[in-house]
């Protein structure tokens, strides 16, 4: 720290000593030294004069006079109050700091959000099946006797209808992206084993394969 009295080291020592000399707590030697310094340093003289005035002003009684007897009666009355009311600070305690309140609000908003999402997820899970299937999930069982059939692009609709009618088959799916249909026997009982061979033998059929069972 640089001392505001910008003279020599003695002035810095004088600055340090002033409050304690004024208090009377400085040693006699220190007090005498300060007196000698002040005798020839006008700057420190001015500073010391201000310090004296400061001490005088600080020693004035409070300008907010309170009646000690009134306060004392209140304190003695407080001693007689029941134990529960004798807390040293019966005033309202500020328990909810704004930060605490903000954190509580954030947690509440999060809880409400999680609740809403949970309800929504639950309701959507009940009403709609998932639009995807994982490898660990078992595939939907295929109909018995189902056959994938790919008719030739030139095959006429009438020929296709005739073929299905002749072999007693009905389309349950397709065509898919590669033009394959899934057909099954119109009745379980009418699924002769030669149906697959007959399909393969038909000129307008490019492919006929039985639907493999799920491994």
């Amino acid at each position, binding site marked *: 720290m640089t001392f505001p009295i910008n003279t020599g080291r003695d002035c810095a020592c004088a*600055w340090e000593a002033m409050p304690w000399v004024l208090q009377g707590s400085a040693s006699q030697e220190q007090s005498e030294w300060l007196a000698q310094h002040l005798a020839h340093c006008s700057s420190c003289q001015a500073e010391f004069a201000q310090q004296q005035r*400061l001490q005088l002003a*600080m020693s004035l009684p409070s300008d907010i006079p*309170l009646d000690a007897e009134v*306060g*004392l009666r209140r*304190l003695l009355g*407080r001693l007689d109050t029941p134990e529960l009311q004798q807390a040293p600070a019966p005033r309202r305690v500020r328990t909810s700091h704004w930060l605490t309140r903000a954190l509580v609000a954030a947690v509440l908003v999060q809880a409400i959000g999680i609740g809403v999402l949970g309800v929504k997820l639950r309701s959507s899970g009940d009403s709609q099946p998932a639009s995807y299937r994982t490898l660990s999930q078992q595939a939907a069982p295929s109909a018995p006797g189902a056959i994938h059939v790919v008719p030739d692009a030139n095959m006429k609709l009438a020929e296709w209808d005739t073929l299905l009618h002749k072999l007693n088959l009905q389309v349950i799916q397709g065509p898919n992206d590669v033009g394959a249909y899934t057909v099954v026997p119109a009745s379980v009982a009418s699924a002769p084993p030669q149906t697959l061979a007959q399909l393969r033998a038909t000129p307008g059929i490019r492919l006929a394969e039985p639907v493999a069972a799920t491994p």
Partner: protein
Amino acid sequence: MNDTDINADAADRLLLQRMVAGDRAALAVLYRSYHGRLCRFLSRLTRRPDVIEEVINDCLWIAWQKAGSFHGDSRVSTWIMGIAYRCGLKALRQHGDEPVEDDNLPDALVPSHDPGEDRELRDWLGKGMDRLSVDQRVVVELVYGVGHSLDDVAVIMQCPVGTVKARLFHARVKLRNVLPSLAGNTSIKEGTL
């Protein structure tokens, strides 16, 4: 510590011993003895009379409750001023530190006798104290008003002596700058310290 301080402290210790035994008369003596200096000390923190009285009573109530735990590590006055300081800071947090304008003081609280010279001195001091922080005002009051040593002030404010020194130094520099009438016109900038 001079002989007067030693005798005053010895008397205070006796009062505390009587308070431990439940002697309310001892509490009353201590209350009257400290009321004036606590009132002035707390008026450096707040200008609200109701808060000052509340803090004084909180402070002496704690002294009554804790008198048995005073082990004499410091002077009784240091111990009590420390309690008052902490109660005062707590009151500031609860009530705010907005000063009450003198115009709003009840008539009964306005000093009936305030010679012109004292009024002038108070105004002069007020201009300087307004520029100080709460901690700086407290240090100035404890050193110049009450007459405590740096070590005592450090105990009261529960901070290192170096911190007290720094607060006192900066407070003096500010006062020197804003109260130039006696210090000449050689005002300095605190930033150069």
